[in-house]
């Protein structure tokens, strides 16, 4: 079982152009990153392309990892998440919303049984639960669907400024809770 230190070391080696390290990093992390891409994009072919794009970025930008201060899995998952979100937004911008409406219905959290045990998750879940349900949903929607303030406002049928205020207050509450 690879530790976070192993992953960090591999990212360091990838930054030096080490292809074998890159392959190991891919072997260790691609299933998780693919899971995230699939959850966000919900289309296999597109999720596969997004995963490729993500690993191209990882290969090219591994040297920037250290400066971010992210933990290694956070850095990798964030790249996969952002890459998938960019595609999802492009899809929405092209007006391909209809299929996504279907997709939205199936956006419930995945099987808990398969979830990685994580203190952070437990903490975050507990803190999200302290928020009103629709506000917690807005935070999740921004993260997993890449919704903008405008889209969140429409989805929750509140004025844009209200949504902005909601979400900001929710984020501050969340931070306060996570810091306890």
């Amino acid at each position, binding site marked *: 079982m690879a530790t976070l230190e192993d992953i960090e070391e591999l990212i360091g080696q990838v930054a030096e152009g080490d*292809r*074998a390290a890159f*392959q190991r990093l*891919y072997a260790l992390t*691609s*299933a*998780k990153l*693919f*899971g995230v891409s*699939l*959850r966000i994009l919900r289309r296999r072919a597109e999720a*596969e392309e997004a*995963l*490729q794009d993500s*690993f*191209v970025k990882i*290969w090219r930008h591994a040297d920037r990892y250290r*400066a*971010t*201060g*992210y*933990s290694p*899995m*956070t*850095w990798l*998952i*964030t790249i996969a*998440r*952002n890459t998938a*979100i960019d595609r999802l937004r492009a899809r929405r911008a092209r007006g391909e919303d209809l299929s996504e409406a279907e997709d939205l219905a199936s956006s419930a*959290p*995945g*099987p*808990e049984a*398969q*979830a*990685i045990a*994580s203190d*952070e*998750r437990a903490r*975050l*879940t507990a803190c999200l639960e302290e928020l009103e349900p629709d506000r917690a949903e807005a*935070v*999740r929607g*921004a*993260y*997993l669907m890449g919704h*903008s*303030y405008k889209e969140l406002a429409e989805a929750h049928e509140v004025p*844009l*400024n209200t949504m*902005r*205020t909601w*979400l*900001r207050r929710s*984020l*501050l509450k*969340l*931070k306060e809770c*996570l810091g306890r």
Partner: protein
Amino acid sequence: MSDTPPPPSDDTPPDSDLLRAAEYVLGLLEPAEAETFEARLATDPALRALTAAWADDLVAITDTIPEAQVPDHVWQALQARLWPKARAEGGAIPRSWRGFLASLGLGELVIGTVAAALLAFVAWEFGWMQPDPDLAAPEYVAEIGEVTGPVRFAAGYDADSATLALERLAGTAAAGRSLELWLIAGDAAPVSVAVWPEEAGRQEIVLPAGLAARVPEAVLAVSDEPAGGSPTGAPTGAVLATGTVRAVAG
């Protein structure tokens, strides 16, 4: 709050940066705002720390997302994109070669799909690109291990492409151990050829020039090593199988 993004004075200073960082991580900033934020990130360690903390906090949203098996072709395509010259040889063993090995009495060959994804791996370890191997008719072969032995490999070597194709016919590494293949030329010290990936049925390895010249009449050996291969660069565990490389007649 106004419809346009508020200037920092709209919030108390610590909340302002705290929120900006969260909005950046969530992708809620407008492109121009995000650019400004990134410019600040480059020079402001405190802001970087805030941002990293949010990224770590919010990534926990993905913890409930199950892993998903990635099809092999994604890795192949990724390699082709990153290193166009490094050919990833997918696919099965050339039919003619398969028939050839069968005719030598080497039995059924395991053609693993997982192996295809791993083919270029060993070549990378040595740092060489994969040329275009033509293994339809290997000039040299070796049967590694006794016919009834617990560990058996078949090898075919194409001198033109310096490609050594290895096929596992029988045997697995012990729990927590790895099988490692070695090339022993004359009195020279054994040279590691591959740490066998436990899930692989077959691998192709492009040998460096120095090693390639020594393949004819060399001995190929399989040893039991710690997981991931010998830590010393020389065999440390029991030798489980050996075989001498011989030229194919005709």
